[in-house]
């Protein structure tokens, strides 16, 4: 028993140092695999890939709050859903919506502005508290948006949501790109994913990101050092909200609709599980978490109808046994 354990620990240590030494090659290889992905798989798998990428963006945005800043938001679906609904309102052809354009150069700034504005309002209120109060308030706010989306059907389409959301295009003047085709849309999502990954990696390694980690570790001391911690948390909240909104936008374009479920606590919970299972405060961990948690129900549904029980159990197991997540097992944290 004892020797087995030592063996496993040695194996993990070897894998850890190998990963650390070859991280650049792993990155390049992953990228190449991601690029040839649509050519090598069936449509069903490609669909799963798109979903995984979108949810990975969502999970990474939550990681900035939960893992780096130590803000346990349980209502991140608020921004995810808002992104979806704003996009739907601008570009959907249903009679409830404006149906203006599907051009990303116009819709993307509107989504960013809309989610940023709501993050300003929610952040201003929620960040007046901390700890469990922050958690309760984010959860409550998101649920309220959910209930408004269901009840205010003359604007939101009620429980059916908004249908007829087009896949996006990109164009200036006569130059024009369409992402209607599934494989083309995959590359668009991949591009958003890469931008998010590098942007967030840049942010968490910048002085700003280090300050966020400082707040996570000891907010009192950061304040003592002269940091205006509210301003840092507020900025992180807005950045995180906008990225979640973009993920929501992509999801509504992918599924051709925006539905209240995008705002549901269950959605916030999924993102949270992805971060916790993958490893909070690692960025790559939540990507692994998103992959697992999107694939697991798909494969589990063949054997059991209780896929949500399974997800809950996975969360409980990780909380109890491996609080550092999968990434934490293979990487020394920081």
């Amino acid at each position, binding site marked *: 028993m004892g020797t087995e354990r030592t063996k496993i620990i040695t194996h993990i240590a070897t894998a850890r140092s190998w990963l650390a030494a070859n991280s650049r090659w792993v990155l390049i290889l992953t990228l190449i695999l991601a690029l040839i992905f649509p050519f090598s798989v069936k449509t069903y798998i490609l669909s799963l890939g798109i979903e995984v990428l979108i949810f990975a963006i969502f999970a990474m945005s939550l990681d900035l709050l939960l893992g780096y800043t130590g803000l346990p938001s349980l209502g991140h679906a608020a921004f995810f859903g808002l992104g979806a609904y704003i996009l739907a309102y601008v570009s959907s052809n249903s009679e409830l919506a404006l149906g203006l354009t599907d051009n990303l150069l116009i819709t993307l700034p509107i989504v960013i502005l809309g989610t940023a504005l709501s993050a300003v309002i929610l952040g201003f209120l929620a960040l007046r508290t901390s700890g469990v109060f922050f958690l*309760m308030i984010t959860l*409550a706010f998101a649920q309220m948006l959910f209930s408004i989306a269901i009840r205010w059907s003359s604007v939101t389409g009620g429980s059916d949501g908004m249908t007829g959301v087009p896949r996006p295009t990109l164009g200036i003047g006569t130059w024009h790109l369409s992402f209607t085709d599934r494989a083309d849309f995959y590359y668009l999502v991949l591009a958003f994913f890469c931008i998010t990954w590098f942007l967030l990696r840049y942010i968490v390694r910048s002085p700003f990101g280090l300050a966020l980690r400082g707040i996570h570790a000891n907010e009192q001391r950061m304040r003592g050092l002269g940091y205006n911690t509210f301003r840092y948390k507020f900025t992180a909240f807005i950045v995180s909200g906008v990225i979640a909104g973009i993920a929501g936008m992509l999801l509504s374009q992918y599924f051709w609709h925006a539905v209240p479920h995008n705002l549901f606590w269950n959605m916030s919970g999924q993102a949270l599980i992805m971060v916790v299972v993958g490893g909070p405060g690692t960025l790559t961990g939540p990507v692994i978490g998103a992959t697992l948690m999107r694939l697991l129900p798909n494969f589990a549904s063949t054997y059991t109808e209780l896929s949500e029980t399974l997800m809950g159990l996975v969360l409980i197991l990780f909380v109890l046994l491996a609080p550092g997540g999968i990434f934490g097992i293979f990487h020394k944290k920081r």
Partner: protein
Amino acid sequence: METLVIQTLNGLVFSMLLFVMAAGLSLIFGQMDVINLAHGSFYLLGGYIGFTMIRQYENYWLALIIAPVIVGTIGFIIEYAILRRIYGRHHHLNQVLFTFGLALVAADLIRWNWGSYVITVAAPPQLQGQVPFLGIQFPVYRLAVITFGLTIGAILWIGIERTRIGMILRAGVSDAKLLSGFGVNIQLVFSGVFAMGTALAALAGVIGAPIHSLYPGLDFEILILTLAVVVVGGLGTLKGAFLGSLLIGMADTFGKTFLPEFALFLIFAVMASVLILRPSGLWGLRGQR
């Protein structure tokens, strides 16, 4: 005028339900610093177990006693077997995540066992019908719920302020570590409090079933409103739970009558204004812990 009286009474009914919920949530938080996100699940579980008992034995009063006992026992086991292993790690976030996982599992299992359709539960035969009250006809059962909520509140208040167990609980709110230094079995207190809190949730579930019916999703609807109560009223005090329940219960009932599409938005507005004025709630324990 008639609508006003009816809606005020309905608001009181809902406030009392919320109060029983919030008291349990607040009790657990006061002792253990844990926000139990499965609290709504225990409400729903209590309601469904109560419904099954009523169907089986055709006795509402038996259900009213047995359902909280069963759910309380489940709560005791959960605290004893798992929750106590994760005290103190990671600023309590892990405990909250644990209860969240529990809520996911419970929601799924409840739907699996009782189905996803709406179940209506009849009021006990002794309390059916309507009586004239302040110039209107009002269901007897709802008046009984108001009385019941006030009674529970009084019992809890006397229990906490006037008994030896209450003394231990109050000491635990101030300093659980010191209390255990005085020879009190604090682990047992924690298990007991968690069982008590979950039993209160189940009690609210049985009382609420004839009014709100039972359906999947109700767990989080109730949980959100209970959270709103403790955000507004403050955590850790009975007074906060009571007054917060009145505020949220009334806001929800009147909101649903006069602004049906924005009922929750009204609650949002109440919460936002309290947050701006007093981030730790109107009557909560001072400061963040």
